[in-house]
């Protein structure tokens, strides 16, 4: 793991400020990165310490008894059904609730030549989250960005602007970045992409369709 979540982004996640889409990119990276997870736990300790400094608010005198009465009904925690086969191995648990089916059963559409996309339904539609599959050794057509794009590698890898991104790596691109990421030659690259605005194709050749041209 060489590319981590930038500290300000991790901080905004820890405080709860980060919207759902970027938060999903962060937690996906954390699923692979004990180092960033440890950093998050330290930031949550700050939250815990600040919580202790708050002047307690008044609560109803019977709130405790009402809560105690509800303990037995809420005793069992419904566990999420474990996905099967390929999904289980490849998808971190934080992504599984967004995919109703197995990885192969998802609705994959071509977003560009060699690039397939499956949308993940976010409650907060300010961002668009997708799983992308890029064929081994193939590029994502050259593009720049109208907003910020977060990418996390789930399997395989890609190279971009002289850097290699492998499983768990976190990549940020913004309007200052024009790039043409290329999947590594040995395997298909599966990644999570979160965008707050459609990307802007700039290449002469590849024509991007969804999610890029809407």
């Amino acid at each position, binding site marked *: 793991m060489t590319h981590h979540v930038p500290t300000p982004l991790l901080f905004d996640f820890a405080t*709860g400020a980060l919207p759902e889409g970027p938060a999903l990119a962060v937690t996906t990276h954390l699923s692979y990165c004990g180092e960033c997870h440890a950093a998050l736990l*330290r930031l949550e*300790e*700050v*939250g815990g310490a600040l*919580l202790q400094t708050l*002047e307690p608010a008044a609560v109803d005198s019977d709130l405790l008894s009402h*809560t105690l009465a509800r303990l037995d009904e809420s005793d069992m*925690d419904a566990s999420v059904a474990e996905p099967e086969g390929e999904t289980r191995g490849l998808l971190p648990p934080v992504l599984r609730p967004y995919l109703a089916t197995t990885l192969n059963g998802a609705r994959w559409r071509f977003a560009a030549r060699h690039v397939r996309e499956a949308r993940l339904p976010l409650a907060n539609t300010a961002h668009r989250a997708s799983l992308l599959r890029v064929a081994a050794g193939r590029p994502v057509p050259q593009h720049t960005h109208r907003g910020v794009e977060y990418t996390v590698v789930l399997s395989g890898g890609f190279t971009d602007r002289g850097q290699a991104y492998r499983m*768990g790596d976190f990549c940020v691109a913004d309007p200052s970045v024009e790039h043409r990421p290329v999947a590594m030659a040995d395997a298909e690259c599966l990644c999570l992409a979160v965008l707050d605005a459609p990307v802007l194709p700039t290449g002469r050749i590849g024509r991007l369709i969804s999610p890029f041209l809407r």
Partner: protein
Amino acid sequence: MSLNLQQESASSARPARGAALVTFPQVGYASPLTLSSRVQVSPMNQDMLCDLVEAVARQRDKAAFARLFQHFAPRLAAFVQRRGADPATAQDVAQDAMLTVWRKAQQFDRSRATASAWIFAIARNRRIDVIRRERRPDPEMLIFMQENNAPSAESEMERSAFHGRLHASLTQVPANQLEILKKAYFEDLAHSEIAQQLGLPLGTVKSRIRLALIRLRGLLDEEETP
């Protein structure tokens, strides 16, 4: 107890870069920004809180739960009210968070977090769920294929020292940095939103948060780039 603004040792008292410390001198003495000493929890008490969560996990101990509730529910209600929720909603979220504590107590691991931090994270997620209608993964869902699993490598003593230091050093964070930390944690405002609200450049907000985290020693390496 008033806010202690004295400088720490030379190593951590590097001059701030840019405009980080030059604006808003008046907030240094505003009472809402000073920490109330009577609600400070010493590391010993934090250990007791951890014991209580473990009693809930292992014995399903309702008396232990009631003590946790009495300690945390009013603070969680205050926490949610700071985000702008009305008292009734805040109380609902506090109750909801405490029910989550009851259900998830088995997942609490004191080698990774204090009870306060674990409950903070639960309440933060419940707040997001109820107020913003978004979901956040439960903490245990982050465990997947992690490299360098640092937390478990720390010794009990190191962790205890870290938490003692954290609580103590909170009182030494300068007021203009503490104000921003509280805005971030209590009002769930992002860097950019805080900058907008306070009329400060984004870079100033970033550097104040960075300086505050450096001051809370052990949280952020001084050498780390922002």
